[in-house]
């Protein structure tokens, strides 16, 4: 199962400078495991210690945010496009 992973500018230095890479895995969790094995430096920005998605990372499969699908259990199909984007949040608090 291979899919295209789009990498945001801010994560590229930790991921070989690439804008996109081909990734393997049947679920988002498996894909991120593949990514963090290849690029260990990026792990803390993608996943929490318990393997759940980092609070400030948005992961999309095609047009859908995986938080509203199955999180790390979200299935990935051949030729899907996965996009990582940093969550944009803050506030006066």
């Amino acid at each position, binding site marked *: 199962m291979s899919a295209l992973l789009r990498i945001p500018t*801010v994560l590229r230095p930790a991921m070989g400078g690439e804008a996109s890479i081909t990734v393997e895995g049947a679920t988002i969790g498996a894909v991120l495991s593949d990514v963090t094995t290849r690029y260990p430096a990026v792990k803390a920005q993608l996943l929490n210690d318990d393997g759940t998605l980092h609070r400030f990372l948005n992961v*999309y499969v095609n047009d859908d945010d995986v938080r509203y699908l199955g999180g790390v259990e979200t299935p990935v199909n051949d030729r899907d496009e996965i*996009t990582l984007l940093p969550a944009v949040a803050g506030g*006066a608090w």
Partner: protein
Amino acid sequence: MLATCIRALPDEGCGLLLGTPDGVVVDVVASPNVAASAKVYEIDPKVLLRTFRRADDEGLEVLGVFHSHTHSAAYPSPTDIRQAPDPAWHYVLISLAAVPSDVRSYSIIEGQVSEEIIRVEGVTGPLADD
């Protein structure tokens, strides 16, 4: 930006800045504040994805983000600083705590905040006199 933030009241308003690689903002993309709060904001993930895709399609870049502080100064809060997603971005803060509103831009790099000069070009109306 001001209209977006005023419409969002009593919550914080927010949106993204889309522009050229040399830093000229050409469009402001309003977003719902999915945090729906007067104290925090979060850009709608759908707007985020759509805006990054539009940037790719049009040869533009997402240059930064704006949001309002409804009752405090136009200066990044500890939350804004801690959660700043990209050191290359411009962070525009709009204070609606007093009239007239205060609009300022900052860079946030590894926790260091620096105010930037906002230059408005090719605009008619009140902002053109700034």
